[in-house]
């Protein structure tokens, strides 16, 4: 037995330190390339934008140069933009959390009951097809012009992707693992907790990533219609004043927030998948 164990240890693959260092260097280069190439492309695009605006002398009301937008952002961030960023960011985060929880719960429900699934799933898919933005005014009719209607609308548009993705994950579980669970007399809940959910984790995260963007869109649309504060309101206000630089400054903040938000979810995914090896 001792003999066979050492044989299998060798078979598991032992890599020398040199090979490992070599592999790490190659990985770092590939990683740098992956970051630098798109960043360089974006930088070049900004540069072309800047030069075009200056050379063609495009009026700032139509299209301000990136440097002018940056100056505006620098000038107004603390006195004005930050104040409007806070409600937008908070509401997007809340909407995202609610969508994720509701989305996973509904997917869990649909995957656990055949009846519910047959009754609801086609309708869920049908709902996906509705241009949901068109329903935003209804939420104001129902819930008024407060944060509730914006939040509900944002949740409404962002929980669908979570449901669809999670359900795909819960359903695609390796059938042999389910057979094992049956042989071990596992309860439905135990199968969900130990098998279906961990298996669905990558799927859930892909749904959550979509939900980050959708929850921001939902809140901004809500602010366009009703709000007295928030970046959506600020954009609308700036457009009424023909302050195009301010519009772009607000959009820049939204982009940065969206990027950080998405990045945080992507990092959480890497951490969890490493932790649970899914």
């Amino acid at each position: 037995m001792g003999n066979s164990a050492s044989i299998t240890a060798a078979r598991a693959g032992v890599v020398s330190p040199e090979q490992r260092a070599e592999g790490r260097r190659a990985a770092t280069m590939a990683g740098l390339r992956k970051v630098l190439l798109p960043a360089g492309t974006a930088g070049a695009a900004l540069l072309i934008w800047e030069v075009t605006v200056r050379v063609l002398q495009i009026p700032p009301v139509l299209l301000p140069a990136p440097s002018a937008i940056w100056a505006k952002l620098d000038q107004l961030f603390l006195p004005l933009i930050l104040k409007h960023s806070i409600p937008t960011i908070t509401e997007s985060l809340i909407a995202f959390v609610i969508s994720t929880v509701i989305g996973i719960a509904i997917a869990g429900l649909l995957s656990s009951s055949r009846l519910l699934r047959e009754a609801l799933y086609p309708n869920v898919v049908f709902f996906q097809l509705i241009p949901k933005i068109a329903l935003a005014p209804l939420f104001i009719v129902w819930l008024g012009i407060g944060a509730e209607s914006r939040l509900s609308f944002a949740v409404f548009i962002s929980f669908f992707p979570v449901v669809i993705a999670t359900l795909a994950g819960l359903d695609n579980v390796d059938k042999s693992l389910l057979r094992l669970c049956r042989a071990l007399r596992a309860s439905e809940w135990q199968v969900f907790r130990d098998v279906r959910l961990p298996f669905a984790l990558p799927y859930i995260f892909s749904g959550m990533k979509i939900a980050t963007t959708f929850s921001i869109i939902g809140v901004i649309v809500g602010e366009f219609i009703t709000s007295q504060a928030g970046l959506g309101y600020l954009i609308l206000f700036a457009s009424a004043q023909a302050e195009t630089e301010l519009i772009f400054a607000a959009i820049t903040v939204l982009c940065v927030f969206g990027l950080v938000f998405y990045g945080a979810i992507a990092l959480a995914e890497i951490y969890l998948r490493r932790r649970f090896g899914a």
Partner: protein
Amino acid sequence: MTAVADFLTLNGVSKIYRSGRSEVHAVESADFTIPSGQFLSILGPSGCGKSTLLSMIGGLETPTTGQIRIAGSPVTAPREDMGYVFQDATLLPWFTVLNNVLFPVRLRQGRTSAYRERARELLEMVGLWDFRDKRPDELSGGMRQRVAICRALITDPDILLMDEPFSALDAISRDEMNVALASIWDRFHKTAVFVTHSIREAVFLSDRILVMSRRPSAICHDVTVPFGRPRAAQIERDPVFVQLCSDLRDQIEEGHRA
């Protein structure tokens, strides 16, 4: 455990799959009895219904006719005192080796600390204790299957069911695993039902072999293996071993033609 002569009994057990108007007779009228402590192999060509028969003994499928009894009580669902090893190791990729072995305990009672010592004993026995914190995808196929065997033994079951557990392995790992299983057997000495299509494997591991034919899907021979235990890998060169293998091959082919 004192030996019980009729620990596992099958009475006229058959399985018929119906789809529309066609019927597939997966297993036809199986009748046999195993005393406790016996290592029984069900040997037959692929598609002869041997895995279906095992699933019914394990309570994963219900017989169309007949009855299966373990220790006197009819089998209607998977039993607590049963360990199951499947064709694939079916380890949970998100659990470590140790937690995979403890998985049945986790399902049964939540807390696993009381079984940690036993898990260590089992993993040491198969030479994998040093790999306890690894994930299944870091192991070779043979190592994964050894973890699956430890998992089946963790709750100290009275009966161990194995469904072609080594058929996905290469020939060398397969021989290794047979030796490993034989030595596990010498220590634990449960009742085992082992499904395989490898004649050599069946003879090396078993006390008794039931040969199944494909058409009809029924048991056509009941063979006793005349070797004692412990068994060394060398018995494969024994003339009696070689003769038994060739007899079994004839019986399987005869079942094939019929």
